[in-house]
């Protein structure tokens, strides 16, 4: 019995030790910067393998080494709504070997207080692929356009049900539609992308949002109607779909995959990434592979990305404020 007690005590002790650490990493030295990259670069992806974000990161990691000679590995850390991956990169050394690849879910998660820190504390390096999102309704829905749906929602507040993942980007897209159209749309938690598609097919929800590639399939099969791409310009891969903006509702929310590093990363390293990414954006094989997954490269350098990320953070904050004021 004594043996067992000891073992338990050791186990607990180590567990507690492992639990504490929140500090910032150290600055890179001059020689580190000049030699960059001479080690394997880890890109943290707060999403499970196989999903859209993971695929985007992997396609990038496969083609980028042509222009930035380094070995890049993807580290999937989907746990804790991305908090673990975020913290690992935020607290890492500022030498550019631990980076974070994700999209606006980082902003929405911070706005709903799931992520303690905001992306403003990170170095925004650049943007990669993006995916347009589309509002979809079931094929037998009475609504053919976003206008139809809004008109109905104006007269029948909280009647139109929108399926989303509460706290995630899809939740914010629905909330934004409510704000911009001045209507009350009932937002439900349905879960992940596949659960939302199931919900719409099964008639449990009236409205959902999904990526453009997915939409085309369901529209062609006669299951769904696409009633608005959440962007100001039509999607090149699906030019026949109308946007929300052209229908008079300023609901823009393309998902943009963005690369971040820890705060105050050396400019020279960021510059190396930007140069490599500029060449990558022209790479045919890379673009072809992205297109297969219905994504397109969106080229922004560090400065542009910083502004973009700050704007998105503000947008998420604005929607969240509206959201919390609704609750109170």
């Amino acid at each position: 019995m004594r043996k067992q007690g000891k073992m338990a005590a050791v186990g607990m002790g180590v567990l507690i030790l492992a639990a504490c650490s929140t500090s910032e990493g150290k600055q890179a030295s001059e020689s580190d910067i000049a030699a960059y990259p001479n080690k394997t670069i880890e890109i943290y992806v707060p999403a499970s393998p196989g999903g859209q974000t993971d695929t985007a990161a992997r396609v990038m990691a496969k083609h980028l080494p042509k222009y930035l000679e380094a070995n890049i590995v993807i580290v999937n850390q989907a746990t804790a709504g991305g908090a673990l991956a975020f913290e690992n990169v935020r607290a890492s050394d500022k030498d550019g070997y631990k980076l974070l690849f994700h999209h606006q879910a980082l902003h929405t998660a911070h706005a709903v207080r799931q992520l303690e820190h905001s992306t403003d504390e990170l170095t925004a390096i650049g943007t990669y692929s993006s995916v347009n999102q589309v509002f979809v309704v079931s094929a037998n829905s009475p609504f053919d356009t976003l206008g139809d749906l809004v008109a109905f929602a104006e007269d029948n507040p909280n009647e139109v049900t929108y399926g989303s993942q509460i706290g995630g980007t899809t939740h914010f897209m629905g909330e934004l539609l409510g704000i911009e159209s001045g209507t009350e749309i009932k937002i439900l938690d349905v879960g992940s992308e596949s659960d939302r598609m199931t919900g719409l097919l099964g008639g449990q929800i009236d409205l959902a949002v999904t990526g453009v590639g997915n939409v085309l399939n369901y529209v062609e099969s006669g299951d769904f109607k696409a009633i608005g791409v959440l962007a100001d310009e039509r999607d090149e891969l699906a030019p026949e779909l109308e946007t929300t903006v052209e229908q008079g509702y300023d609901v823009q929310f393309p998902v943009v995959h963005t690369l971040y590093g820890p705060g105050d990363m050396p400019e020279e390293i960021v510059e190396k990434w930007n140069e490599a990414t500029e060449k990558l954006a022209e790479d045919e094989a890379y673009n072809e592979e992205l297109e297969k997954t219905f994504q397109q490269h969106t080229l922004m350098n560090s400065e542009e990305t910083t502004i973009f990320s700050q704007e998105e953070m503000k947008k998420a904050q604005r929607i969240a404020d509206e959201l919390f004021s609704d609750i109170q």
Partner: protein
Amino acid sequence: MDVLIQSLSEALTPFVILLMALGVLIGLIFGTVPGLTATMGMALFVPFTFGLDPVPGIAFLICLHLGGVSGGLVASTLLGIPGTPSSIATTFDAYPMSKNGEPLRALGIGVIASLIGGALSFVALVTISPVISRFAVQMGPFEFFALIFFALSLVAVLAKGSMLKGITAGFLGLAAGIVGFAPIDGLQRYTLGILELKGGIELLPLIMGLFAISQILIEILGDSKSQDIDFKAKGFAISLVEIVKNGWNLVRSSIIGIAFGILPGLGSGTSNLVAYAQAKQASKTSERFGKGAPEGIYASESANSASVGGSLIPMLSLGIPGDTVTAILLGGFMVHGLQPGPLFFTSNPHIVNVVFIAFFVAMIFVVFFQFFGMRLFTRVLTVPKQYLFPVIFVLTIVGAYTTNSSIFDIWVMVLFGVIGFFLVRNGFPIAPMILGFILGPLLETYLRRALMTTGNPTDFFTNPISALFILAGIACVIFTLRSEIKDKRKQSTNNTLNL
């Protein structure tokens, strides 16, 4: 028909067959080695298929999937450690049977049950998948809540024999499942300010702790006696009569497997436990469960293989993955320029056929490899424990780490190893704990989603499917408790008579 011939000619070239054999073999390894799972194998090898054409790439992945789920059998039987979450229930009876000196029989039952479960799900996949998946999408949060409620009531069945300890273990599982962000509103619960706990406790470290680490601790402390092992059994070491006798058990377990495979969020990790509990409930000799009852192995292994076919049904016909492995598989399809969705059947009939063919070939390869491997695998039992356990320990650490690339998960595994050790030592069954851990969070999520939809709790009872499952769940608990009390009374009268 022309399409089928085209698919056959593409899928049955020597190169593709070789790849399929390789896929099954890799899957079996990932399934067999404690700590590595089919999901991990899939995640690791999807990038490998990028360089292949779609047909060989997809055939390879399907084979890896089935191999991964089937491989769990070996470690469950021989070591009492589930190689993957889909074979948790297999450990309950296959390991005792193996300890009683019949490892070959236990493996034989597992292989045959896998084959039958897989074959039945194959038939469902090929014939009626569009119909079933159209039906499955009608399931809303109310129905899901009720179904999970029913599955959770099976804790009582799993606890049968030591009801109080079993229910306690079930609640321990529920408690472990509460840790982390709450569903929907993301409220932090029992995270103790620890970042890693925000995401909750992961299934794999929990299982590896409860089974592998606690097992190692028990063996180190020298509780288990070694038995003479019968290596001489012929063939699969089982008779046709026995299979026929388990016919209904196999069919029921396979149906459970297919159904749980189709429904999102459940899959083979849950179906094997539910099928096992159902087999225990239906058995006239339920007291033999947990001590090497063949029915338990038939139920668990047929259910988990059937879930593989089940999870492919919504993926092929609707583009909706049934579980985590198929979700990764979907990603693999997309890289090959195949957008799975409702059009998949009509626009890519030859790829659909390739999936069917690969699934079929995979079943044959699994039986082939396991049949010839059986005698080799069992030699593991002759390896001295001082060499075997360090290896297993290292592998479980790798497995726990890989889930999230997080050291923290290794400590979670060690902690649950210690907890499992004390539970097993004191006669608490582990099965109810696992069921509580997996189903508790799902139950809460669907309860809240359902209430969010209408805000009216009576809807759980006015909705027919939901009402049916809730009543079945309540009936299951009452029925089990009654028979338990009866058994206890009989026991005590027997005891007084003996006095």
